[in-house]
């Protein structure tokens, strides 16, 4: 749809301004590649969300920027030392300075709006519809006509929404609705991998919060799981790290197994051909009633899961000292915590968590 009512004037400068149909991204200086990629790759209407996600993923290590999206609402987002000025009474100015994260504001249904960032020297209205131009600032004028048209279209959409619920067999309308839906189609993660890439399971990443000593803890942890230091709350401090060891298993013969990757424990686990267990490290444990592949230990995020592999004699878990024994259903994962004891055949192991440093 052509946005007749949006006039964009660009001021000269060394930054970059990227425009989409109803959104723009302005980065006054620095490398905008990551933000621009996110801004351009998402479906219409998701631009600000996509940029926000890219900022979080980059650990907030991005240059200052302004992102705007308009339609029935005007949404503005500012990060870093940069200010947005508008003629809207609810949002005279929006500044990214002084916030560790970005600042966002939405004005409901403006009839017209003018938005400026460093607009001094802005030239003629550009006909840029999609693409990137050098810029030092801009002035965006959203005309009464353009916004009214968009708002009317959105209102018409809303009416459709309500009608369709009641008349679910209006096939053509529904199909069009389904086709227009922004829900993302399923993607097989395997298809994303270049064929030559061997996924190294030891290098699994997890989201984590780090203490000042650099220990990684679960993102929901209130205190460092290693040294006990209090961790700052909020998503801003969450980073992606290589998963640390989640603890260890202590076998009844004194042997120890590090929980730094998934394990397949049995009398002859090397003979296992189940593709679901292909990535697990084989651990040979002798015992009379131990099956060839007896128990699988998997790491999921920050949790340790055990599952019986359809063994002859079964696997039993005492989840906490003094609690009821649980008989595992074959191939069904059971979450275990430090202190849990897992019995398999004539053998057993105790689950130990991560050590506290003394």
């Amino acid at each position, binding site marked *: 749809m052509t946005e007749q009512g949006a006039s964009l004037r660009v001021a000269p400068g060394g930054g970059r301004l990227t425009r989409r149909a109803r959104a723009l991204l302005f980065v006054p200086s620095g490398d905008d*590649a*990551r933000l621009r*990629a*996110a801004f351009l*790759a*998402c479906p219409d209407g998701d631009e600000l969300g996509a940029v926000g*996600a890219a900022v979080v*993923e*980059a650990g907030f290590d991005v240059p200052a920027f302004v992102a705007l999206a308009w339609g029935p609402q005007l949404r503005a987002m500012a990060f870093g030392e940069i200010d947005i000025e508008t003629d809207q009474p609810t949002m005279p100015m929006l500044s990214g300075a002084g916030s560790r994260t970005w600042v966002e504001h*939405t004005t409901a249904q403006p009839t017209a709006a003018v938005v400026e960032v460093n607009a001094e020297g802005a030239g003629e209205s550009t006909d840029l519809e999609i693409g990137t131009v050098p810029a030092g600032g801009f002035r965006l004028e959203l005309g009464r006509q353009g916004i009214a048209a968009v708002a009317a279209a959105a209102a018409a959409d*809303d009416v*459709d*929404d*309500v009608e*369709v*619920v009641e008349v679910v*067999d209006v*096939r053509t309308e*529904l*199909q069009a*609705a*389904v*086709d227009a*839906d922004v*829900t*993302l*189609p*399923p*993607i*097989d*993660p395997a298809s*994303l*991998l270049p064929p030559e*890439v061997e*996924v190294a399971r030891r*290098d*699994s*990443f997890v989201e984590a919060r780090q203490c000042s000593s650099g220990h990684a803890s679960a993102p*929901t942890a*209130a205190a460092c799981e290693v040294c006990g230091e209090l961790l700052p*709350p909020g998503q801003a401090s969450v980073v*992606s790290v290589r998963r640390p060891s989640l603890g260890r298993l202590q076998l009844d013969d004194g042997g120890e197994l590090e929980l730094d990757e998934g394990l397949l424990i049995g009398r002859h686990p090397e003979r296992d051909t189940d593709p679901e267990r292909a990535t697990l490290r084989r651990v040979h444990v002798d015992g009379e*009633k131990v099956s060839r592949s007896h128990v699988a230990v998997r790491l*999921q995020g*920050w*949790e340790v*899961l055990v599952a019986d592999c359809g063994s002859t*004699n079964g696997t039993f878990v*005492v989840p906490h000292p*003094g*609690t*009821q*024994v649980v008989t595992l*259903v074959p191939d069904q*994962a059971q*979450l275990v915590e430090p202190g*849990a004891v897992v*019995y398999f*055949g*004539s053998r057993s192991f105790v689950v130990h968590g991560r050590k506290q440093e003394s």
Partner: protein
Amino acid sequence: MIVLLDDDTVPTSNAEVLADIAAALETIALGVVQWGAATSTGLRRAINEDVWGHRENVFTVADGMGGRGGGAVAARIATDRFLDAAVAVPRRATWHDIVVAVSDEVSRAGEAQAMARLGTTLLAAVVEGSIVTLVHLGDGRAYRGNDPGRLELLTQDHDVRSELLAAGLDAREYRERGVALHGLTSFIGLPVDVLRVDVIAVPVRAGDRLLLCTDGVHRHVEEAHLRTAMGSISCQQAADRLVAAADDTGGRDNATAVLFEIGAVAQ
């Protein structure tokens, strides 16, 4: 003849020993002592495609997809059919097979109404004494917590971002290549050969609370709110507040929370 019991006569099968211990512990029974649920359309969408469900000892949340009512249909069908199968005594199929049957039904309903690509996430919790079994597809999340403010994420999102993370790949690189990281890798409505169901048994103790929520809650609500929900206020109040908190952040999505508390119940 008197047989003296010495060490040799102690049963050596772990199964027997454990059965004895289990019998001794049978006297304490755990179950749901209180629960609450709340859902909101949010401020930006016309239809609530989230559905929560509760029957007997089973709780569910589902977030439908498929545009303008289709998603709500998918979430409703999946919730009802799953609950039917989950509370049937005796349970006739494995959780995986139940989910496959539900998924088939949702696909067929979509075809019947010419709604292709109909789907829904599904997250269910089945409470059986000291074990809560989670059945999970999509990006709903289950958290466990208790009063002192412990909070734990029990599920892994079935989305591209989590898969890349788990595989040790840099999600940013894929985003730059135009891959939508929020794309779901498993949900109800997919054919059986690509359907992935996580079934996780979680041990619980008296005082534990479990929260099931859709992405409208866990993507938008501050962690501090999740922590508060795990104690001090009733489950219903907590569910209401979580959903209100999601709306307060802009109400970009439908938001649904189901919360229940485990405690000692009469046998």
